[in-house]
């Protein structure tokens, strides 16, 4: 891993190491003899999907500063389209193959193709949603993106072939820990490298001051749409994996409440902070699960965990209005203290 290697070889080596670690973890986790390991595994996978969603929304909301409330819609597009491809095209083909290594290999190839297609369609949706952002900003853009998300949901509700209001069931269980965390890791790396690149710098410029950015020769329109396309692609991929993991999709899952949850993760972590999004996604995924046992102490068997979840959300926001890490990353918060005062300034509104 020295600097003398060409960059692509270094990246490839890192990727190989990452894949090896993930494979080891995937098998290692299955081997741990704890009662209810399947449950913990499920929570971990959902956490990975939430991290991917939060990181992808952070590109739109945090880096490019375009306030989007339609992330559940992009996720729904990716989830439903990939599930449609698998259910109607790939799964029947796979069933005709003899069982064995080749079938296993093809299953994963099909999964990758389906999920990528879902991501691409979501990216197209992101392109269409990004277009109004040329004219609208702030709250108006937020409500339009929210509207797009709901329109997507209502259209899904009216397509009978993908289950309509009944939900889409019978999706094969192809997604697993390995794929979810591979995508999650890639999303984090993509988003990190993006911020370091000229494109990411342009995003930040658009966020800080659109007029000044334009005066500096940045094509603000192009970068805004670009942020939407990248963010929604990753959300679509996360949705595809969600579909192939839970094996069942319901339009109700993709209501704007889901978008709110992802926005809460991004803002709680600190707008623009990638590690913040990751940490907040982990907290907000585990919080309701960790509170599951509270139910046992309640009379009448009513479940107060979502009540506690919402109170925690309010309290966390009141105590850290700028998010957990502000705009900085995890290591900057706990690392050198000199840099602190520079980046402590609240974001410009």
């Amino acid at each position: 891993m020295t600097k003398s290697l060409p960059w692509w070889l270094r990246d490839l080596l890192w990727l190989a190491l990452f894949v090896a670690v993930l494979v080891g973890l995937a098998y290692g986790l299955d081997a741990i003899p704890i009662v209810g390991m399947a449950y913990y595994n499920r929570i971990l996978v959902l956490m990975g999907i939430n991290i991917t969603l939060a990181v992808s929304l952070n590109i739109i909301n945090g880096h490019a500063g375009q306030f989007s409330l339609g992330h559940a819609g992009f996720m729904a597009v990716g989830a439903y389209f990939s599930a449609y491809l698998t259910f109607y095209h790939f799964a029947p083909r796979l069933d005709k193959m003899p069982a064995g290594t080749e079938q296993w290999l093809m299953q994963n190839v099909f999964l990758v193709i389906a999920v990528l297609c879902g991501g691409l369609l979501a990216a197209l949706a992101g392109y269409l949603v990004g277009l109004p952002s040329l004219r609208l900003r702030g709250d108006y853009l937020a409500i339009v993106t929210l509207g797009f998300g709901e329109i997507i949901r209502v259209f899904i509700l009216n397509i009978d072939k993908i289950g309509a209001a009944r939900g889409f069931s019978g999706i094969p269980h192809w997604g697993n820990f390995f794929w979810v965390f591979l995508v999650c890791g890639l999303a984090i790396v993509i988003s990190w490298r993006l911020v370091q690149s000229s494109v990411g710098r342009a995003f930040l410029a658009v966020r800080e001051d659109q007029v000044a950015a334009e005066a500096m020769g940045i094509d603000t329109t192009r970068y805004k749409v670009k942020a939407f396309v990248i963010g929604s692609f990753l959300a679509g991929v996360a949705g595809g994996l969600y579909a192939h993991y839970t094996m069942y999709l319901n339009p109700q899952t993709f209501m704007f409440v889901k978008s709110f949850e992802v926005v809460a993760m991004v803002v709680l972590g600190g707008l623009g902070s990638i590690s913040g999004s990751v940490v907040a996604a982990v907290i907000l995924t585990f919080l309701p699960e960790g509170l599951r046992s509270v139910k046992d102490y309640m009379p009448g068997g009513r479940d107060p965990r979502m009540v506690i979840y919402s109170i925690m959300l309010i309290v966390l926001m009141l105590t850290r209005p700028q998010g957990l890490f502000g705009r900085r990353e995890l290591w900057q918060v706990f690392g050198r203290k000199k840099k602190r005062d520079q980046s402590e300034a609240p974001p410009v509104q």
Partner: protein
Amino acid sequence: MQEILQNLLNGIAVGAIYALIALGYTMVYGILKLINFAHGDVFMLGSFVGFYVGGYAARHLHTTGGALGWGYAGLVMLVAMVVCGLFGFLNERIAYRPLRNSPRIASLITAIGVSFLLEYGGQFVFGADPKRFPTLVAPHYIAFGGLSVTNYQIIVLVVAVIFMGLLQYIIYGTKFGRAMRAVSFNFETASLMGIPTDRVISMTFIIGSMLAAVAGILFGLSYPTINPLMGIMPGLKAFIAAVLGGIGNVPGAVVGGLIIGIIESFIGGSPLSGYKDAIAFIILIAILLFRPSGLFGKYQAEKV
């Protein structure tokens, strides 16, 4: 022709309820530039207060199944307004005021948190099952030149118009209203001129929440099945109505509410009824693309 008139009438009755909720959104936005996402759930809270107070009165009067009558209906509405007003006051005090000087997005997230709290708290306290709203006034059907009108629709319209008139008077006819307009015009200058901005903001929340309570009671009267999640969709549509009319603009909210109500009513009676929930958004997007600040909103040019 008759069908068109009937749809128009139903649409106006629904639209009046949307308009009452939209007023709360638009007043708060006009002053704080905050989308109070919890407002739709305050509407739900109003309905549930009506359910409990009305149910208590019905048990007390031994009129189970019968109507309560006008006096008690008024009382139920009053109690709901007081409870929601108090909630609106506390909501602003606890969840929004500490964040006044923070980035606006922080209070947006607490608004979402309060909204979740009301929805899940409602499911926890009231139970998630749908409840039957008590009959406040006996229903009548009035045949009117081939149209079927219920007295509920007339009550909804009359009550909504009374409260909108009252609001118009408060905003344009009283000293407090002048203070409110001043704060919404320029927050800092208003406070320099000696206007107690905090009190004005508190009052705005109280008034908005009271209007939501009225809408909640009227909704319970017309559609007597209520549940803790009932505030989500009407709240969202009322918000769209506020944006449609130009957010921050009071008459705009009323017009927006009526437009959404009427269009929904027409779509509901057509073969496209499956797309009813999407239509409000499609109209919104279409209008915003041509008039980015809503029908009556002022377009503000960007300053460098």
